[in-house]
């Protein structure tokens, strides 16, 4: 193709686009924006958004191993929601473990999020005006930077009937009768693990609350003190209203964290999530369905989508904050 | 050095898809080597005009010429303009030297020439001892000088300044005012200077373009702007305290003031509502009934300001200001405000100057 004609079609095209849009386009700027966006968004599309859409669509298809075999409508959804590994209705109504990964995951959230939030706020307040608060905070936060798989192993170690310090502590305070292998008792294991999760996440919420507390103008607290407000009133009338917005963030991040729990449970209880799946969570069931024999890709996608459905309101809330 | 006149022809700028009109039909000629000041209150569109000249905005309508060249579609760097920002816009991560070298670096000037030109610019502005410092370590005045050095180092054909002195304290502002003026005339460069400070405009500008509501109200030399404000708006904007405007009716070659008395004018016999403008400094306050033109009132307050005194006189419920070197009148005195008919400005009911 001769150069001129290429040139002229190029001009033609840009003019035609401008005609369609109804305004002049700054082509230099457009090109620059594309150069900046394309590499990153391509990888994002290929390895994040694309696979996400694949899961959404794939949940309505039957799979032969890892390959799509045919449209089956809601069959995967029906099968998954009646699968006792996901929801065990009988046990759920009797409140007996295993209740299935979905109720167990939600139970974890209900216990974990308020506990870690309140503990974090408490520690942030406790440390706020002490000397050496940085060291104290670092100690509490350490668990959050540790690989979660290590956290799971540490919990296994802490709750060990022989070598675990938790049982050792019970012996020292004379509660010999309570000594047991906490993580293999079906009806209590999940609570022991939730406590471990709270142990880790408290550092995170403490960090956020600490920075919110640090940004409070001390003159406000001093003037409240001069006005005769006691510590409780000062907290209720000044500190709490100012750190309240952070609470929303702490709660949302806590929920996302619980939703993503995988390594802790895997390390403590293997791919089944404890004996007979008693503390299995959704992430673990995705892994089992997709990458353990027998492969059930459709089911894995449905379970992952259940997680997404729980996460969507959180995403909407974050988007509204922006 | 290439010198350039700037011409704006019917330039309009709309924002938000026409919701906001920042500039409306601006026409402006800036001559080669001229120091032109855009003066106006905030929101009058003067900064938008400057940004249109810089190429940071493209006009919605109209044309901009640098010399004979239409530059509407040229990028800021193609226009070879330099700009000094209100907050200086120094690159915080570069040293003073890095900042000044930056425009040369991106234009691929050789390192040797760069050194020469940086030395020249920094010596001219007396900042050759600050080269290795970071902007954060400098005082306001020093930052100002660095941003000026960065602007002149690459020998631009047009020099644009957006309220460059407004972040400095009063003393430094006076100092930099004369320094800027010296720099501009030494370099002989065309400069457009935006300010809301009329004193700055009067003292620096070769000509001043007064802007309001997105358009230019008057372009004139400082003296003429003060002597012959073309509209009541300009008249009240220039001068401190502003010009007094008295309502009246024109009839048979004379103006009858609402507050009593009349002034004869040499204008033709047209009639209608008019405003009579007298500058406070053109009044003389007297307790004796005068022979010439005067208006009568009661002293409301006296503000002695050292250099001069402002006498606020209540005339028919409205305050008229007079500026006197000294005065003996006190609150409550009945006084006459004398003026010469040659000091009177007459504006029609649309606010346009009549004579």
């Amino acid at each position: 193709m001769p150069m001129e004609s290429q040139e002229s079609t190029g001009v033609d095209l840009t003019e035609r686009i401008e005609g369609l849009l109804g305004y002049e386009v700054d082509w230099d700027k457009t090109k620059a924006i594309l150069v900046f966006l394309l590499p990153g968004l391509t990888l994002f599309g290929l390895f994040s958004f694309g696979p996400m859409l694949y899961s959404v669509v794939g949940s309505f298809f039957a799979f032969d191993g890892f390959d799509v075999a045919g449209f089956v409508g809601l069959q995967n959804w029906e099968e998954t929601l009646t699968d006792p590994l996901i929801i065990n209705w009988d046990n759920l109504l009797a409140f007996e473990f295993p209740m299935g990964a979905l109720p167990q995951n939600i139970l974890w959230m209900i216990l974990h999020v308020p506990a870690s939030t309140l503990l974090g706020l408490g520690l942030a307040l406790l440390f706020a005006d002490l000397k050496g608060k940085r060291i104290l905070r670092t100690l509490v936060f350490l668990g959050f930077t540790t690989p979660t798989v290590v956290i799971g192993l540490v919990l296994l170690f802490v709750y060990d009937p022989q070598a675990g310090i938790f049982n050792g502590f019970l012996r020292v305070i004379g509660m010999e009768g309570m000594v047991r292998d906490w993580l293999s008792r079906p009806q209590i294991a999940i609570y022991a693990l939730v406590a471990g999760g709270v142990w880790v996440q408290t550092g995170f919420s403490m960090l956020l609350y600490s920075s919110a507390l640090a940004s409070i103008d001390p003159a406000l607290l001093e003037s409240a003190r001069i006005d005769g407000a006691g510590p409780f009133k000062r907290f209720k009338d000044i500190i709490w209203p100012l750190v309240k917005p952070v609470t929303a963030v702490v709660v949302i991040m806590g929920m996302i964290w619980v939703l993503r729990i995988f390594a802790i449970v895997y390390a403590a209880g293997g791919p089944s999530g404890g004996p007979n799946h008693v503390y299995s969570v959704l992430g673990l069931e995705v892994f089992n369905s997709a990458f353990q024999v027998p492969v059930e890709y459709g089911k894995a996608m449905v379970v992952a989508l259940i997680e997404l459905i729980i996460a969507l309101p959180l995403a909407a809330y974050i988007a509204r904050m922006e | 050095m290439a010198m350039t006149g700037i011409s704006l022809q019917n330039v309009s700028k709309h924002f938000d898809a026409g919701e906001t009109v920042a500039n409306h039909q601006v026409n402006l000629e800036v001559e080669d080597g001229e120091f032109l000041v855009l003066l106006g209150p905030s929101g009058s569109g003067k900064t938008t005009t400057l940004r249109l000249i810089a190429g940071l905005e493209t006009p919605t309508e109209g044309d901009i010429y640098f010399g004979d060249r239409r530059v509407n579609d040229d990028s800021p760097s193609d226009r070879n303009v330099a700009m000094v920002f209100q907050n200086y816009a120094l690159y915080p991560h570069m040293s003073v030297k890095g900042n000044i070298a930056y425009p040369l670096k991106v234009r691929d000037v050789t390192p040797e020439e760069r050194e020469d030109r940086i030395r020249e610019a920094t010596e001219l502005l007396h900042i050759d001892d600050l080269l290795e410092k970071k902007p954060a370590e400098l005082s306001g005045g020093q930052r100002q000088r660095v941003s000026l050095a960065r602007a002149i180092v690459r020998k631009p054909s047009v020099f644009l300044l957006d309220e460059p002195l407004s972040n400095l304290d009063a003393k430094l502002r006076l100092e930099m005012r004369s320094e800027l003026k010296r720099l501009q005339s030494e370099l002989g460069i065309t400069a457009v200077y935006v300010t809301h400070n009329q004193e700055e405009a009067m003292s620096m500008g070769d000509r001043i373009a007064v802007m309001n509501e997105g358009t230019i109200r008057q372009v004139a030399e400082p003296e003429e702007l003060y002597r012959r404000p073309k509209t009541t708006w300009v008249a009240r904007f220039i001068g401190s305290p502003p010009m007094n405007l008295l309502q009246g009716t024109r009839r048979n070659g004379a103006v009858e003031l609402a507050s009593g008395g009349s002034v004869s004018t040499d204008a033709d016999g047209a009639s209608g509502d008019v405003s009579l403008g007298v500058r406070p400094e053109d009044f003389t306050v007297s307790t004796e009934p005068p022979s010439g033109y005067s208006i009568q009132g009661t002293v409301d307050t006296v503000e002695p300001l050292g250099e001069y005194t402002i006498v606020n006189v209540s005339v028919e419920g409205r305050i008229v200001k007079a500026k006197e070197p000294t005065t003996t009148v006190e609150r409550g005195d009945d006084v006459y405000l004398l003026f010469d008919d040659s000091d009177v400005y007459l504006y029609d009911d649309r606010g346009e100057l009549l004579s």
Partner: protein
Amino acid sequence: MEEERTLDAPPETAPQTDLDLWTKIRYALPTLPRAARYAIAIGLAVLWVVPFIGLLMASFRPLSEIIHGWWHLEGMTLTLENYWAALDFSTAPMSRTLINTAIVTVPSVMVVMLLGAMVAYPFARFDFPLKKTLFFILIIVMAAPPELVAMGNYNTLRETGLFDTYLGLILVHVGWGIGWVVLFLRNFLLGLPDELEEAARIDGASRYQIFRTIVLPFSAPALVSVAVIQFTWVWNAFFFPMVFMRSSELYLAPQVLPMMKGRLQIDWGLVAAGSILTMAVPVLLFIVLQRYYTRGMVAAVAD
């Protein structure tokens, strides 16, 4: 200067009244309720790290002693045996898995920083079609669980031959991390003054020069935060390596730790030494660059 001071100028230090030693000490000590708060605070902080102290102790002691409680200190034997065993672990030696983890982590961090900053810049500065939609998609992915993308990526990597390779895992990490990095850097770049870019444009810089010489250096503190946080996340990641790394010579360190548990009696010494080796890198990085880590964490989620 001294002579110039007038007589009524205030003294430079408060007048020293003569206090006896005990009074001085009493003033220096915190009041009783405050001392109690210190005791509680230190007690809680120590309680929080007890499990890690146990892990550290166990990593240096023989199994026979750990079994009876690492907190029993009498007759303690210190040994590096557990570390040697972990570094030589038969399924996948830690000496290898730690290097594998670094091979995956370092490029994942570098690429995500560069590409993330490039995407964040237009998001912070320009308007373009679909900007709002793209933005919301980024947020959804930030809130979504990683399991959601595992199936699609598994098939993609298998089809392209990148399954069970360093590159495959790196690409997954980059694609997954770019969402939060873009959101984080966009928030930071919203604070970049317009005038700096305008000054650079007038100085003659192209948009790419502006990005390289103004935007990137300006973002340096935020980029360090991104680097530290992304490094710990990728290094600590467990799920992605479990899914995408199947050859034992490519195993990553976190992936191998559960395998060290063994079948019957858990060899706590081995598990502890492996855990300490794995967590040492992110924990040290956190301690050294704590300022950037915490600032980034707070900014990433609180803004």
